[in-house]
């Protein structure tokens, strides 16, 4: 037990900020890992990242008209998601449609922030919107955020088989009568819910990291979807917990004794895991290689 005090700084488990951070962090990690696995398989990393970014446009808009940030995040994500879907009528158009929608939403964000500073002359809002922090989550937000997590996970559970089939091969899904279009729209909904709630809690930066990193790492170790989901969840949870612990410990570290950002720890661990997974030999395929993910 004496060793533990060097690993866990005093008061870690008693601190209410840490308790909230561990709770919402775990919820975000699980949801992001599960949804992210499908995001990576479907090759939608850019959209997954863009949804996190446009949430802040919605948040700025919400701050402007004085409603709760969470509605801003969700409506920002919905507007962008629907716009990208409408504009990408052919697969070739998806990338540039995402780019155009993202840049327009960021432009709108610049307008909202300008209007906020004109009206209220406070600059704190800008920084808060750009970098969320897991240690500053209001405890009253824990419940609504958990509900969103559960909704996204339920949607994925409901879609599981058809989503897997249409993600791996759209043609095979079509020939088996899977409503591919409907499935991809419902998945978009799950993605928006998952990304927006995590962007609100941990900021757009960590939201993208937790969505892509654990899934991309897990995919290298196994080819079975069930194991991939499990492994991605384990990576995401362990990473978040260790990240929070290190960030808490770092309050006593140099140079300033003000703590290092939790985002840095979580991302550093994740990139390390990803690089390790790139070095190890790829898991052998049990069935024929599905192609598309290697050149």
């Amino acid at each position: 037990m004496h060793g533990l005090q060097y690993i866990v700084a005093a008061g870690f488990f008693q601190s209410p900020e840490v308790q909230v951070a561990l709770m919402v962090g775990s919820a975000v990690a699980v949801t992001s890992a599960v949804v992210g696995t499908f995001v990576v398989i479907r090759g939608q990393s850019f959209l997954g990242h863009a949804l996190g970014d446009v949430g802040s446009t919605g948040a700025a808009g919400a701050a402007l008209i004085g409603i709760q940030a969470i509605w801003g995040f969700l409506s920002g994500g919905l507007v962008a998601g629907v716009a990208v879907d409408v504009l990408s009528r052919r697969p070739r158009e998806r990338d540039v449609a995402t780019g155009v929608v993202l840049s327009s939403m960021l432009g709108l964000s610049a307008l909202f922030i300008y209007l906020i500073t004109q009206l209220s002359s406070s600059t704190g809002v800008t920084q808060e919107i750009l970098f969320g922090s897991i240690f500053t989550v209001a405890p009253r937000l824990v419940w609504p955020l958990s509900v969103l997590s559960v909704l996204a996970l339920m949607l994925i559970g409901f879609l599981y088989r058809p989503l897997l089939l249409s993600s791996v091969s759209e043609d095979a899904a079509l020939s088996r009568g899977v409503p591919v279009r409907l499935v991809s729209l419902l998945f978009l909904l799950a993605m928006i819910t998952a990304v927006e709630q995590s962007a609100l809690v941990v900021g757009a930066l960590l939201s993208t990291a937790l969505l892509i990193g654990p899934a991309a790492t897990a995919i290298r170790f196994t080819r079975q979807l069930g194991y991939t989901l499990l492994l991605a969840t384990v990576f995401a949870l362990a990473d978040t917990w260790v990240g929070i612990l290190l960030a808490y410990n770092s309050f006593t570290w140099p140079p300033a004794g003000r703590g290092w950002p939790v985002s840095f720890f979580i991302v550093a661990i994740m990139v390390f895991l990803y690089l390790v997974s790139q070095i190890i030999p790829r898991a052998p395929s049990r069935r024929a290689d599905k192609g598309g993910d290697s050149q």
Partner: protein
Amino acid sequence: MMQIWHQVFQPGLFTYPFLIHAWVSASAIAIISAVIGFFVNLRGESFVAHALPRGAFAGAAAAFLVGASSLLGLSVFAVAMALGMGTMRRQGEKGVSTALILVMALALGDLFLTVGNAYAPEVFALLFGQLLGVSASEMIAITILSAVLLLVVGAVFRPLLLSSTVPEFAAARGVPLTVMNITFTVLVALAASLTVPVVGALLAFSLMIGPAAAGWYLAKSPGRAMAYAVVVALSSVWVSIVIGYDTSLPVGFLVATFCLIAYGGARWIHFSRSRRAPAPSPRPQT
């Protein structure tokens, strides 16, 4: 009539030195962004065009920490990220490596800002740029560097175009695809380090995406698509400077909006064209 003219083109718009600097540098940046953006669009790499200007911001934070020039930090970071992206491109889904390199850069930026103690307005200014703060010497540097970058693009134009449109054919002709990947990402990085200090990360991205996308829908040949992209970029920037000067609305918002309008208009023209004459559509329908 003259009154309306003076309302729109308010006094000083073409005579104040800081505005002349803004006109010239913004035009140079619009041209180089549209040309690089043409390749971004062709290769379907909008994520890279978003990630490099945005992540390079972390380089400025690092430079702020050690007291180096932010331009140096920006360029070093952008090129390092580009090299990472270009080499990791071979393995796995391409969005994954871009996303991970971007979040790593942003996390480092977050760390530098926190450790380097707090508020660094110079660094935050990089998010939105300072188009009206360009000095005469900076304007000359931007113009010369843009011209040099254009020449570099001209030198690699054929192999880059070939590897972007028909990679298998290019490989068969002896064009090394990995080298071309890296060339492409480094070109985007160089353009980003040139444009971000002036117009900000947001606008650097808008100028690389919107005009090239509009050009793609309007033109049938690569050369024309590029020319349209340059025209769209230049006119968006010019109109935005005029309106921004009149109304003090943020230029980033105005340029993004005009690029969106141009993109929408181009798609509409493309759509009505293909409806009128469906037969000679150059692109495969799915």
